[in-house]
């Protein structure tokens, strides 16, 4: 079982967002960066599948500036075998990033290529499915269950009002959602071992593509609300507001 995990570096989800000068990106000063939380489900799935198979290789791949190397080492500390840094600036156009990743994964002999379902910075939600399309591989997005048997995968994914079930042959591309597994923490020994694992750096040039970020702004603050009252006695007043003022009931 040879598995690639494509990884992103994102601000910690608790980070306060401040817009940088220029108005198209966030100010990274003092922001803590972490592996994209959804990618951790992909990493865990890769490690667990290899452990179960008893053999194989897990590889983590990331496209971006040098800062992503620390994120790659976190994946190595969790238990991934090898890292590849596709060194270059990612595009605002997800399709161009998908091309760079697909070019690297193609011919790598992978049984599985895993992604997080989205990155918690740009919420692009497209790279995984695009890589699958470019590689002409089966794909399911936002999976919450994955079973591999006899060269086939069975997956589940949440859709509105239910859980969709699907199967496909390997090799395949999946993007991973919360619920798939419970990602492990890197152990202290893992952190020390990460330094000694193979780490390749391959420069890439990503085309600009057809997308430009025009602006990034903070959402308008909600108008300050009000306390209607205390306890069950306040329910009639609340109902009055919901029915007559807000007209939502």
């Amino acid at each position: 079982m040879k598995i690639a995990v494509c990884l992103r570096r994102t601000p910690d989800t608790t980070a306060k967002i401040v817009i940088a000068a220029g108005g198209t990106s966030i100010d990274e000063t003092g922001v803590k960066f972490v592996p994209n939380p959804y990618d951790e489900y992909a990493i865990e799935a890769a490690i667990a599948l290899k452990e179960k198979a008893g053999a194989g290789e897990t590889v983590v791949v990331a496209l971006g500036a040098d800062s992503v190397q620390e994120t790659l080492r976190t994946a190595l500390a969790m238990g991934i075998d090898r890292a590849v840094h596709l060194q270059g600036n990612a595009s605002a156009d997800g399709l161009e990033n998908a091309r760079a990743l697909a070019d690297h994964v193609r011919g790598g002999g992978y049984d599985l290529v895993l992604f997080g379902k989205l990155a918690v910075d740009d919420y692009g939600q497209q790279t995984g499915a695009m890589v699958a399309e470019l590689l002409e591989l089966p794909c399911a997005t936002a999976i919450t269950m994955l079973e591999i048997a006899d060269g086939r995968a069975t997956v589940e994914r949440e859709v509105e009002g239910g859980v969709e079930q699907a199967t496909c042959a390997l090799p395949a591309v999946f993007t991973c959602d919360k619920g798939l597994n419970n990602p492990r923490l890197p152990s202290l020994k893992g952190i020390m071992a990460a330094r000694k694992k193979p780490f390749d750096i391959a420069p890439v040039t990503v085309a600009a593509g057809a997308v430009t970020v025009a602006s990034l702004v903070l959402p308008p603050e909600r108008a300050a609300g009000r306390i209607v009252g205390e306890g069950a006695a306040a329910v009639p007043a609340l109902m009055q507001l919901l029915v007559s003022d807000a007209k939502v009931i």
Partner: protein
Amino acid sequence: MANVLAVLEVRNGALRKGSAELLAAARRLADASGGTVDALVCSTGAVNTDTLGAAGADRVLSASHADFANYCPDGTVATVASVSAQYRAIVVSASATGKDLAPRIAARINAPCAMDVTSVDLSGDTIRVVRPVYAGKALQTVDLRGSTVIAVRPGAYAGLGAGKAGANVSITVPPFTKRLDVTGIRTANTGLLDVAEARVVISGGRGLGDPKHFVLLEELAAAFGGEAAVGASRAVVDAGWAEHGAQVGQTGKTVAPELYIAVGISGAIQHLAGMRTAKVIVAINRDKDAPIFKVADYGIVGDLFEVVPALTAAVKQVKAH
């Protein structure tokens, strides 16, 4: 002139909710330049599409195939690609299915893709969209050049009245390789609406004290008569009190209902990220200092075990009239 293709969703032989909203968004884009809107319906053949003209479709393209009994991404992508050259933009609903489909189409037809779009405009060669990023903590405006695939967030556009002909056209499904085989949909345990789809969302947090008290919220949801869903905070999902499909917030679902009622939820920033775009937010919490009251339009400070049943009774009474 921007002609727009709206790819509609079908489940169990019927169009999904949100079809009219998607056509409204498509219409807005097309009307900006005198373009037309086509609705594409991929099914096994027997879907009632009579309402689509009234919702704004100039034409309804019906693509029938035996593999379209369930969602069939590979066949749908092939069908869209076979007609895509006629369109400036292809729009889908930013549902679980639409978000699965959009990037596949984009990669197939070599077009950029924008997800979770809340506003869309055409200006010259450029389609300009606005979309929440950083879990709703910021709004990004993006310009897309050339043919474009856009997933429009549910709730972003209300259905328009401007009716069109909705002329029926059958199109041929080109040959495709079915790489992924969707075998069916298992209905989630709740039987209630999904939080991402419901007009009213009632979410519970740690303040409920025990998973069994979710029944209070289910009763309130039931009082709304099939338009409400029950959600949960991350804390209680992590504690195993609720399924993760019900989780509202940064690592769960982002919801934009008309009415959001937060019960016993303190309002961690990750939770607020998932519901701050609700039209009206009501908070019920014992702690008057809880951060949830800062975003709530209306708050009641008090014991949820008294307030929620009283609210349930009041909603029932209003609905009965």
